[in-house]
């Protein structure tokens, strides 16, 4: 099982268009890991995810491509991937859902595109999103047990697979 420590908060110089985008977020950016012609990776203040999302969506040509959740030593690392067109830039903003609660503020009320992906990260990794408008299950079946997160590093597909639920009774009316 490989555990990856959260990268140290490195600071690389802000350059070019990606530098302008990250610079516009001001001190909400607490660490820049990569900033080159077409890609940017930065860590943002966990208290200010909603504000950052609002600012990103207000910029010209931005859209939320998706988000990635990663099970790391100190919690769940949530990576929001923003595409900016027509510059063809992808800026990844990282925020750590730390502590036993593993909670960050949901950006779904501001960016509808985050709705499903936050539900997915909640289902598969157990990250919690404060203020999400509709945190029902999206990926896992309703019969899947609570508190079992199949995309965590310590989940073994053979050892930890929950038993299948009992088969539902046969429908009275045959399907046409």
């Amino acid at each position, binding site marked *: 099982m*490989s555990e*990856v420590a959260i990268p140290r908060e490195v600071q690389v110089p802000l350059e070019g268009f990606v530098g302008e985008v990250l610079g516009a977020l001001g001190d909400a950016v607490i660490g820049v890991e990569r900033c080159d012609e*077409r*890609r940017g*990776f930065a860590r943002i203040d966990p208290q200010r995810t909603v504000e950052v999302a609002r600012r990103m*969506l207000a910029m010209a040509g931005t*859209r*939320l*491509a*998706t988000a*990635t959740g*990663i099970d790391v030593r100190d919690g769940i690392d949530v*990576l929001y*991937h923003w*595409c900016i*067109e*027509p*510059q*063809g*830039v*992808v800026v*990844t903003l990282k925020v750590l859902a730390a502590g036993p609660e593993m909670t960050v503020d949901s950006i779904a009320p501001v*960016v*509808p*595109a985050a*709705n*499903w*992906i936050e539900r997915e990260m909640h289902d598969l990794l157990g990250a919690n999103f404060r203020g999400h408008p509709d945190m029902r299950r*999206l*990926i*896992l079946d309703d019969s899947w047990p609570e508190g079992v997160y*199949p*995309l965590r590093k310590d*989940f073994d*597909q053979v050892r930890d697979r929950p038993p299948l639920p009992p088969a539902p009774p046969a429908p009275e*009316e045959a399907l*046409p």
Partner: protein
Amino acid sequence: MSHKTMINIGPFHPLQEEAEFFQLYVDGERVVDVDVRISYNHRGIEKLDESKTFDQVPFVVERVCGICSASHPLAYVQAVEDIAHVQVPERALYLRTIVNELERIHSHLLWVGLAGHFLGYNTVFMWAWKYREPILDALEVATGSRVNYANCKIGGVRRDMTDEQLKEIDRLATESYGPVEMLTKAVIDDPVLHARLKNVGVLSKADARAYGATGPTGRGSGLPIDVRRDDPYAAYDRIDWQVHYEESGDVFAKAKVRLLETLEAVKIIQRAVRAIPGGEIDAKVQNIPPGEAVGHVEAPRGETFHYVRSDGSNYPVRHKVRAPSFNNIPTFKASCIGQEIADVAITLASVDPCYSCTERMCAAVDAESGRRMFDFAQLVKLSQEKTQRLRRQL
């Protein structure tokens, strides 16, 4: 007095190849809300990839979807090549372009056929699938297989193509131009289709952006976004081609964008085959250093997005796959509400939702009695009847 009814579409239906579940809430004939439940066939590919070596992952991700089986591996290998700072040989870039554009033609023709069927144009269905067949043959010539091409590898492509193969691909693509052009004109000039599809299922530009719509769904709503042009990969920045987009956001716009893109794809293939340079096809990557990167590719349905993190071992620590339908299906919340039930089937179909991408299926139940009202076949029938009605009026 209003009577709200819930219509279930899904999760299993013989018309659809996989499971997905839509619930439409209707008031009389109008849709007032939509809810979607996905993942009846979740295969855990992201988890599986963590136990595969970097070289094995392309063969897993091309099985995400039989139709996008060139786009997913390409997005993945581009992310890994970014981590390892690989310079891919020119010839490999052109070969990737050819296979990806063949894939676009066959996917769009498949969609045109299905959309025709939903509207009661079964001739369109027959024609589109007939013209799709030679493209699958061309893919077989190019890669040895009609689906799951096993073409991409980190650092290049797995198989070279001979001049005879390239000529045959050129011939098959060129021969399909005429029929596709005819199909395009038949759709764009048909007064019944204008009446049937214009102002149906409108997705506004602001909604498209907020929901992160990609591909033809976004381009039909006036977002001129295309990864091939904006963040060029393969040989797209070396070939002359253009992005088609429409402002109106209705089903007609999405159909027109897809058809024009199909023609553009034929042109891209012709130009790529004629301009392809000789040389190596593989950069022979030895190992993948620690790091992280994203790769994205314009698949037929929209942008497919991959994120890869490496810790320097042979296995990816994390591989995130986001298929285009995952972003496009939630746009139903914006485009279906306020529609008539008869327009729902084609509005749902207009984003070309892919089960493998995300998942689906359909029946209609009276909210109070629990009696089944419609299933998806009946929704398609309603849709076809509306076309007939319009045809008689014109």
